[in-house]
């Protein structure tokens, strides 16, 4: 029993940490300010959130480690059952059951989560068998000196959930623009800004997925700090621009430039933790700054035209240069001993 208790306690800690990091101070929280008018939007975002939530808690123990622990078959079965209680999907299922009193709905919810995990596991298996199954692998190397880095950054960014939340907004806004009988012209601008908002948390932790190994490589490459930040920004802006194409792109792009200019500071100085296939983790203060400044200057671009976009681009470029130098200096002094 003591062994099971110890394992479950460790598992509980791992699940709570994972949960905390799955949506930590993400700028999507600011969408909550939209209130009840955005129910459909939250439903879609909740669907995306189901991906990180539905992972098997027992996966957090390396399979090889679990296999060599001296647990009896009964203890293993007990661990399996008890670990299910640590799944946030099980908690959500119980909540649905308590709130709606509909067993079928709760089971359908849990079934959806299990199906999603099954699909993900199948995807991982296929990629392991043949790397060509990796959809992100289709991103080609871009031309130029930084082309390889931009490709890597694109893949890293697309392995966060934020671009997919932004894509839902973009598709929704684009569909409204095309199919609505009399679309409100302002809607396209607003949806563009919201799309940029959904992506903007990634701009706060541009080095989050590089790990120490990647950071060591940056230092070895004959590149300036600003070039490394620029490769990050190009990837961010490329994704944002594609997502903005069905909408009014320029206010959203202005938001993106402002979000990057603000986010460079947190990216370089805060080292926020990041996990693949989770929503980006941000910092509430930087998120509030990104949102307020991005929305304000984005709306200004809508009113005043491209001059505001150009000024945002200049500001972002200055931020790239300044924080590129800071990154060189800070990182050089900070690397820990072996």
């Amino acid at each position, binding site marked *: 029993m003591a062994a099971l208790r110890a394992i479950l306690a460790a598992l509980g800690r791992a699940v709570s940490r994972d949960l905390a990091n799955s949506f930590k101070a993400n700028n999507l929280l600011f969408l909550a300010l939209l209130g009840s008018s955005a129910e459909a939007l939250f439903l879609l975002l909740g669907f995306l959130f189901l991906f990180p939530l539905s992972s098997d808690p027992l996966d957090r123990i390396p399979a090889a480690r679990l296999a060599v622990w001296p647990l009896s078959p009964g203890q293993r079965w007990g661990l399996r059952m008890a670990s299910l209680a640590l799944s946030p999907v099980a908690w959500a299922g119980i909540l649905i059951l308590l709130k709606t009193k509909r067993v079928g709905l709760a089971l359908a919810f849990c079934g959806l989560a299990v199906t999603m995990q099954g699909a993900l596991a199948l995807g991982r298996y296929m*990629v392991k068998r043949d790397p060509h199954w990796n959809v992100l692998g289709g991103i080609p190397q871009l031309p130029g000196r930084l082309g*390889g880095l931009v490709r890597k950054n694109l*893949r890293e960014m697309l392995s966060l959930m934020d671009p997919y939340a932004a894509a839902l907004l973009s598709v929704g806004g684009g569909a409204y623009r095309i199919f609505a009988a009399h679309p409100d012209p302002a809607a396209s601008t607003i949806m563009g800004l919201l799309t940029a908002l959904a992506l903007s948390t990634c701009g706060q932790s541009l080095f989050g*997925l590089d790990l120490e190994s990647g950071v060591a490589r940056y*230092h070895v490459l004959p590149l300036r700090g600003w070039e490394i930040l620029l490769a990050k920004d190009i990837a961010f802006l490329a994704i944002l621009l594609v997502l903005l194409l069905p909408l009014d792109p320029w206010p959203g792009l202005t938001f993106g430039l402002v979000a990057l200019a603000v986010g460079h500071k947190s990216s370089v100085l805060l080292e926020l933790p990041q996990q693949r296939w989770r929503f980006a983790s941000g910092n509430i203060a930087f998120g509030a700054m990104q949102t307020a400044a991005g929305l304000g200057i984005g709306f200004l671009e809508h009113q005043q035209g491209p001059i505001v976009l150009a000024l945002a681009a200049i500001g972002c470029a200055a931020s790239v240069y300044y924080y590129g130098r800071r990154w060189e200096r800070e990182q050089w002094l900070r*690397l820990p001993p072996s």
Partner: protein
Amino acid sequence: MLHCQDVSKRFGDFVALNHISFDLPGGICAVLGPNGAGKSTLLKIVTGLLAPDSGEVRIAGCDVAKESLRVKRIIGVLPEDLGVFDALTVEEHLDLCGPVYGLGRAETRDRRDALLRVLGLEKGRHTYLDQCSHGMRKKTALAMALLHNPRVLMLDEPFEGIDPVSSVTIRDLLIHISRRGIAVFLTSHALAMIPQLATEVMMIRGGQIVFHAAAGELERPLEELYFDLVETPQQEDLPWLRSAQS
């Protein structure tokens, strides 16, 4: 080629390097020492990955602190944590490096293919690094260090986690390139490999150089010398480790 003058580094109260000075004119210099002796810290400092508290490092006449970009162009580095990206395949790592070092597309492709062949990475060239074995990751990082034809090669534990055949391949490769004028500075725990490879041996203990000589001038077997000067193997028995019968 590599000049290190009075280099010191502290991490809080811990003295990682204590007034280290040496010159490496060329050849292959192997740095030996126990875990925590300061080998990797020294390598990080001479590659510009870490700032020393005091002292000066010069590579091919360039100050590592003041001319870091020039230095980075002429050195090839296998860092301690390898410096690889999980989001790229083995092949894509080399494709990334070529243009950064100013190589053209065709030249990058030719050198990449040759390195993948020599290091036995051809079969796994399309494998993402997060799915590679430690040995493959290390060989990828080594290929990245070699791609741009560096003047000085800095390798942190190049033989650790590498299969015997690849170890011999890497050893022979290093010997060949050092004969062509590329200086190699490496850290290692593989005592058996060093006498066949190194032209100079340096031993570090507690952040200080306790031995530095040409490999050909060693008066005793390297292992014996190492156990004498650097670290004696622990002889303590663990009585609670016994068979159930006894």
